[in-house]
């Protein structure tokens, strides 16, 4: 493990809103770009690419992704970004559209380089204190918890707060973190010097060559991708009202890749997508956190990863207000038991 390097592990924030009117219209999508940029500036990231459809807007950022639905914002950032500083600004901007926050969920894995993180991310305790201080009182059902695994380097941190205790049948989320990527596969995410390409075309090529384009077989799905210089890759997938997102830090010593997607009872393909995503990177360690997924779906995901020859090291779960059940599973290759 390197002494220091880029932190691939992301911090993820999901904010849910509702308005007085039953028909929300375009809701948060009405937020003009200047306002969004202002918030992103506070988090130290910028827009690199973007794509939308009738359901939501997606943005590829310099340090990950942003999704804006009429009633929901999901922002995921890596490196040393101060993600939680976006909470207050987002809540305030939503208020100008007569939208009130009704739920918040903050999740992350374990940082590879925790000492490099700035306030308020120097510890989970500090993050929780910051959140408690910055969210409105009416989000009265709150819980913070660290879900462990058998690997000391892999825990799952969750803070959830809501105006109601139980989630209302929202779709489930799958957040996958992969470390110790196969080096031959990771090299595909390095730009070639003098390749005559730009970040957009190099990104497109990476998407095709690595098999990422084949993770979602729906022909109506679109991918918005980008390749960073000298290395690194990000993509957002849009498929109806579902997003998916992949981010890659390919450097040896701190290699990392994440895959996140949304599923519902209508999608039988999530386990298959998870399997294909793992195959792109052949990592030494995989962690999968699902929020509000059925036991059956968690078992299917477990089976899919095990089919690739990885061994499930742990399965832990916890219940959270407004978010539902979070299941956290970790897998390692049979040859590779790192702590």
């Amino acid at each position, binding site marked *: 493990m390197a002494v220091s390097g880029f932190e691939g592990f992301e911090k993820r924030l999901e904010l849910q809103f509702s308005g007085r009117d039953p028909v929300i219209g375009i809701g948060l999508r009405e937020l003009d770009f200047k306002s969004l940029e202002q918030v992103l500036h506070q988090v130290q990231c910028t827009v690199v690419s*973007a794509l939308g459809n009738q359901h939501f807007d997606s943005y590829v950022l310099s340090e990950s992704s942003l999704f*804006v639905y009429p009633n929901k914002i999901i922002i995921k950032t890596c490196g040393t970004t101060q993600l939680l500083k976006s909470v207050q600004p987002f809540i305030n901007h939503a208020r100008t559209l007569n939208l009130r926050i009704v739920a918040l969920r903050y999740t992350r894995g374990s940082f590879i380089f925790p000492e490099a993180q700035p306030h308020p991310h120097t510890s989970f305790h500090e993050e929780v204190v910051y959140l408690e201080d910055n969210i409105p009182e009416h989000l009265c059902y709150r819980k913070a918890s660290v879900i462990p695994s058998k690997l000391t380097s892999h825990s799952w941190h969750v803070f959830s707060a809501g105006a109601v205790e139980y989630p209302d049948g929202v779709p489930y989320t799958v957040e996958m973190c992969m470390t110790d990527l196969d080096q031959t596969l990771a090299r595909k995410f390095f730009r070639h010097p003098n390749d005559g390409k730009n970040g957009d075309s190099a990104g*497109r090529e990476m998407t095709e060559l690595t098999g990422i384009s084949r993770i979602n077989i729906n022909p109506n799905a679109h991918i918005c991708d980008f390749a960073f210089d000298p290395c690194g890759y990000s993509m957002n997938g849009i498929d109806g009202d579902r997003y998916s997102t992949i981010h890659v830090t390919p450097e040896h010593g701190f290699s990392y890749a994440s895959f996140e997607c949304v599923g519902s009872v209508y999608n039988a393909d999530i386990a298959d997508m998870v399997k294909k995503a793992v195959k792109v990177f052949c990592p030494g360690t995989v962690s999968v956190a699902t929020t509000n997924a059925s036991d059956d779906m968690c078992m299917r995901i477990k089976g899919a990863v095990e089919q690739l020859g990885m061994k499930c090291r742990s399965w832990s779960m916890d219940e959270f207000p407004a978010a539902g059940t979070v299941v956290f599973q970790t897998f390692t290759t049979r040859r590779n038991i790192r702590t």
Partner: protein
Amino acid sequence: MGGQFSSPSPQTFGGKVVTVKSKEDWETQLQNSKTSNKLMVIDFSASWCGPSLFMDPVVQDLANEFPDVDFIKIDIDDFKDVADTFEVKAIPTFVLLKKGKERERVVGVKKDELHRVIEKLRS
């Protein structure tokens, strides 16, 4: 002289991004593309889509940089059938036409890529 209207002759947009306002407008633009050697860039856009709005100033800059290229803007709600004909599923979508035929398209906010294909196809 009578006030006889004729359909506009192939125009130089000269750095202007022309918003298509009617079906007739669109037919004229398409006809213009078929009968000239100029590259035409269609910006399929929507006012409720952040990424689409993000590209507005970018498209204007490109129109200024390439005055020999025609830039037109089509709202996908106002012209749903045109958007369907071009199978526009995500926005923004930029379709590049030459002689009325699609030569390339760029889907999403991809400034560098859009610049590259415009440069490639304009001659």
